[in-house]
Each structure stands twice: as C-alpha cells, then as structure tokens.
C-alpha cells in the first residue's frame, strides 16, 4: 500500500453518469490481484473529508496506469467527474484482497456476474483468467440502456450477455434471469454488484464455487476503524466478523452474511 498523488491521464463519461478515469503512478506496480481497490480523496481541498473506495478496473503495469470506472452520484464522485486531465488525486492503494485467479485451473469455465458499478473489478479479473486459458463467460446487468458500459471490452475476453432491468437493451431482467434463460453452466463464479444481486446468486446457486465482492461504507479503508465489518455465516455466538476493506472486498461464496 502507498499514498500517492496520481496523475489524471483521462476522465470521460462512457455512459450516463458513468465515468472512466485513467490514473498514472507508481502505485500501479503494487497491484497483486484483480479486484483490489483504491481509496481516493476526491478533492484537492480538505473536504469532502472521507476518501471514496473505487475498484481497480484495468491495470497496465508497463505503461504504469490503471483505470477506474465510477458513477458520479454523490458529492465526492461528482467532484471526481470534474477532475481535468493533468490534475492529481491523492490516492491510497492498492487495498484489500481481490479475486483468487491463482486458484483457477486452465480450461475451467468461469462465469463473471456483474451489476452496475460492480462490473469494473471483473474486467481485470476476466483478463487474468483469459491469459491463464480459462473459459470466461460474462453476464452484466444494468438499469437501462443508457447506463450500459464495457460490453465490447468484455467481448475480447469471452462470451458476453447483457441485461437491463427495464428491458431497454439486451435481455430484460437481472443477471440471474439471463443465466437461467441461457442455461449458463460454470465451474466457478465471480460476482460483484448490488447486494440484492449477490443474494439472488447465492440463493440460486447455493453449492457454487466462487467469490463475491462486497461494498460497505468505509472510514479508513485499511482495517483500523471497524466501520466496514460484516457477519460470517458460520458464527454460533455472533462475534465473528470480516472487514470488507482488509479481509475483502472479495470473499468466498457464502462465507459472509449479505
């Protein structure tokens, strides 16, 4: 982990309110797993006070840059969206544990399931899997046509299915609807998205092998404040927990309570 003023190399809207930002800096060299995240101070001024966690989407160690994709929604992400090329951002990272690509064997069938701004960390993950010779299928869901992003980049990795909740693009419904409709089979599943989506997946595929990536409101991002804890499923006395920031954000299938 390091704290660095990263340089904004690019920052553009790629779907409605969805921005893709390219950041350059040494920190890129420290990334060990796809699915790790950054904790970003969104303004050169002291406020907003808290950093914003954003997943690393794409890593390019050779050219020393990475990409994040975020929805400009609240105060902090709106400030991010106004950052101009050449400005710097105070970033700490890489943080947390990503998807365990090293556990996957060549030839395995891996399904990537992403919802909304949960899609980004799956991109680097898919890439790493493909390089290993894994057979990757991607199913990504969005609210509507206007917010769909990264369909094409994922095509380079394998088959891609898109759903929208309002049916304005791809299959109408949720990621799980696509999976049923297309009867997608897989040896392992890596998922990231809103909690209802993750819950639906764990319920439909209780025996699956795989991982989910979780979101939680954070203070420190590095494991000291205990803001981001979640319960574990195997926890008779209710005292066991995981920290999303430092134990996660990626957890084994059904390890934690959603």
């Amino acid at each position, binding site marked *: *982990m390091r*704290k660095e003023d990263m340089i904004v190399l690019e920052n553009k809207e790629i779907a409605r309110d969805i921005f893709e930002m390219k950041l350059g800096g040494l920190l890129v060299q420290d990334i060990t797993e796809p699915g790790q995240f950054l904790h970003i*101070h969104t303004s050169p001024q*002291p*406020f*907003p*006070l*808290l*950093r914003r966690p954003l997943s690393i989407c794409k890593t390019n160690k050779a050219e020393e840059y990475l990409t994040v994709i975020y929805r400009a929604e609240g105060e902090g992400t709106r400030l991010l969206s106004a950052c101009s090329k050449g400005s710097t951002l105070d970033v*700490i990272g890489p943080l947390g544990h990503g998807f365990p690509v090293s556990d996957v064997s060549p030839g395995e069938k891996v399904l990537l399931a992403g919802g909304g701004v949960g899609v980004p960390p799956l991109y680097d993950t898919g890439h790493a899997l493909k390089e290993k010779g894994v057979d990757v299928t991607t199913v990504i869901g969005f609210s509507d046509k206007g917010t769909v992003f990264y369909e094409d980049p994922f095509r380079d990795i394998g088959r891609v299915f898109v759903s929208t909740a309002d049916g304005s693009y791809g299959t109408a419904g949720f990621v799980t609807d696509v999976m049923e409709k297309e009867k997608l089979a897989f040896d392992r599943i890596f998922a990231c998205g809103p909690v209802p989506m993750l819950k639906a997946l764990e319920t439909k595929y209780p025996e699956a092998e795989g991982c989910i990536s979780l979101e*939680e*409101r*954070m*203070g*420190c*991002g*590095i*494991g*000291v*404040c*205990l*803001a*981001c*804890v*979640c*319960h574990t499923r195997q926890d008779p006395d*209710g*005292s066991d*927990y995981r920290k999303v920031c*430092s134990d996660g954000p990626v957890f084994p299938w059904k390890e934690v309570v959603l």
Partner: protein
Amino acid sequence: MSRIAVELPGLSMKNPIMPASGCFGFGEEMGSLYDLNELGAIALKATTREPRFGNETPRVAETAAGMLNAIGLQNPGLQKVISEKLPKLKSIETPLLANIAGTTMEDYEEVAADLSGTGRVNALELNISCPNVKEGGIAFGTDPSLAAELTERVKAVSSVPVYVKLSPNVTDITDIAKAVERAGADGLTLINTLSGMKIDRKSRKPLLANQAGGLSGPAVKPIAVRMIHEVRRQTQLPLIGMGGISDVEDIIDFIIAGADAVAVGTANFTNPFICPELSRGLEKWLAQEQYTHLYDLQPKEVHSVE
C-alpha cells in the same frame, strides 16, 4: 533536550502526538505502514470485559467537515486483548494508553485490573463518554458523582495512572472534570465525539443502523478547543486534547488552549501516515520559530504540569 518531548503521568512521550482511541485499532495494521516507535504514545481501541461485535452497518457517515461513527465498541474482549493484541506490541517502545469501557463499575474494575496488570500498558483511559452504546457508560460520563465513584474504584485497582475521557455532550464539562480530579484521576482526555445524526437521502431514514452516531473531525474542533480552554482553567490535571486535529497549526491551537499532549483520530482515515508527519512537522515548525519547547507556546498562567 527535545523540543517536542513531553512527560505525562505514565506516558513518557518523545512527541506530544498519539493516535486517538478507536482510530488505530490495536496498532497492527498501522504497524505495517510505518514504525510505531515514531509515535508519542498509542491510545488503543476500547476494551470491554466480553467480546463485542458492536452495531450493525452502516456504521459511518460523512458530514460537512466531519464524520459520524457508531462502531459500538467492537473489540475482541479483555482476554483476547491480553493474549493476542498486546503481545504484538511487545517489540515497540511507545507507551500505550489502554482505553477501557463497560456497563457496570465492576466491568471497568476488572478490565482495569487485568490490563494494568499486564505490565505492557502504561496508563488507562476510562471511556465514560461513548455516545454509541446505550449501556456503554454514558451515564458515567454525564453524572459527576458517578464519574467520581468510578474513577476512585478504578484507581484502587489499577497499577498504572488513570486518565478519564470526557464527553462533550454535557451542560458543563468542568463539573465532571473537577469531580474526577477530586476522585484521584491522573489526567483527562477530551473530547470524545458529539452525538449526531444523518438522514439518508435515499431511504429518508437515519443513515446509521444505530440511528445516532458520534461526530468527529474538523467540524468539532471549535467545541473541543473551547472545552479544553475551560477545563484547563478549572483543574490542575494534565490534558490530552483531541477533536478535529489534522495539521500542525491545529496542534498549536490545542496547546495554546491548554492541552499538554494531543490525540489524532479521524485524520488517520484521511491520511494513514498523519501521526509521524505531524510530529516531524511540529518539530520543524518549532525550530523555525525558535521555540525551545512546545510548552513555550502556552500562556504562563495556563500550564500546570511540571
């Protein structure tokens, strides 16, 4: 002599800066980022007799120049703190201030006796001011006679100096300060967080699962400075000041107001490296301004620790 070394009961600090309780865990994570020997002291996360999971999430919310937290004193409990957390701090020399919390006087006594008995803890900080747990000692923090009784009982069982952490959620903080001073406290730490609430703009309900939470960060600094200024004039006890410190100038403000040392909480989240940065920055600033010691900043009549 060092410009920034300070001596407080039980705490021989090479600089006046410590991370505040709850903002540094038990030091493990930060220890992998920098050498904990750079710190003046470390205030540990609150320890209770039994393990506590704390409140449900969301536990934090951002506010204008501040944040709310409602962690709810999550900690592994007295036994694990002794058997697992303290041993990891063996190799560093930095004095430790163990923050203790409880529901009953007996809770406090047991935790105080056992933690002070470990030999690794240099002083205790009685958390009688956590706004985030209903049974969490809040009455001890608002009632001067209860606060005094608790202080006396803990003093009786503790083998190290005892600091009392004061709540700002009171009509007159000097009442409590004077009561615990008479009861034998060795020092005061202030302020804990102010009770606050944020409404979630989507659900239109309180955002924190616990509804209310404790406000910290730059927003509360004027309140903290005022309270330290008041307490300084009403007691002789050493004061560890905190509440919104995030730069060297903030530390100077607290020292002028009457603090003998300071703690940094929320700012650790903005910048995990802030404590060592502040101690280097403070040293440099004092050198530039040609002060021989930090305390030369304080008005003469104010400083009461020898």
